[in-house]
């Protein structure tokens, strides 16, 4: 199935939800409105047999000439279909003032940790995520290190060394 067909099928089903679509060599990309991400991915999973979520990540486009605050962040979903041996990249734009997206953990369990990582690194909140907390950085860390406005050389105070080894029940 050609990607443009897929974009056409989605367009038929979800009117106005596709912002753009493109093919660059093997990378087939569809950009989708933020509100429709969950529904479109559910449709792709249930009816187009995209049964494997390979990755969820994000990009910060702060300072890019063709971007503004409303299109600052981009979330990238990397889908794969074992049945058709096909890859598809779904992107969505996130406004700096409204950093929320619907979580797709109920569709793919692998999204759980990927979304936590995006939250940890970029501060984008996933609605309906079962356990949205930092995954790589420690809990005391302030800010989100992969954002473009996080200072490159900034160091933060370490975790209090004495606090470790304390059982969580004791607290």
């Amino acid at each position, binding site marked *: 199935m050609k990607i443009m067909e897929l974009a056409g099928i989605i367009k038929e089903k979800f009117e106005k939800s596709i912002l753009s679509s493109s093919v660059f060599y093997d990378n087939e990309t569809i950009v989708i409105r933020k509100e429709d991400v969950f529904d479109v991915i559910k449709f792709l999973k249930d009816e187009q047999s995209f049964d494997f979520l390979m990755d969820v990540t994000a990009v910060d486009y702060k300072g890019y000439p063709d971007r503004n605050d409303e299109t600052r962040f981009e979330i990238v979903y990397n889908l794969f279909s074992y049945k058709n041996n096909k890859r598809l990249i779904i992107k969505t734009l996130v406004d700096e003032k409204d950093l929320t997206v619907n979580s797709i953990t109920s569709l793919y369990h692998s999204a759980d940790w990927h979304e936590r990582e995006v939250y940890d690194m970029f501060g984008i909140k996933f609605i309906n995520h079962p356990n949205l907390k930092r995954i790589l950085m420690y809990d005391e860390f302030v800010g989100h*290190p992969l954002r473009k406005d996080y200072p490159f050389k900034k160091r933060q105070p370490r975790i209090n060394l004495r606090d470790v080894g304390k059982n969580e029940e004791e607290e």
Partner: protein
Amino acid sequence: MGLETIFGKSWATSKMEYVINWARKFSFFDYPFVTACCGMEFMSTFASTYDIARFGAEFPRFSPRQADVLFVVGTVNQKLAPVLRMTYEQMVEPKWVLSFGACATSGGFYDNYAVVDGIDKIIPVDVYIPGCPPRPKAVLDALIKLQEHVQREKLIK
């Protein structure tokens, strides 16, 4: 049995301090705190070609409570720092620390938000081994340096 079969009825004098330090320096029990790629060179140092057993340190203990040399091998990041500190505090005296590789020594090329720039910010270090990763010969050199350091230690401070 023992020394008397070699020495017969003869005897030797020495300082208590010298004998104890001599025994300590040839019977290191190491605890490998291996976190990253330097671990490969660590393994090769322990394996037969370089054979760290020649220096009496061939017996890694996988519990810090049984060890007296802490090998910090690899990158230590901020989240791991308290764990390293706790491992160090669990070791009993006398104890020494070897910082293995550029990452453990100074953070290496990881100049960023996540990596501790040198484990000496967290625990005291006796010998630093430079290199990314250091060659086994450099490790053995550091071990000999540590042995010299142990031999010079004072029992009564």
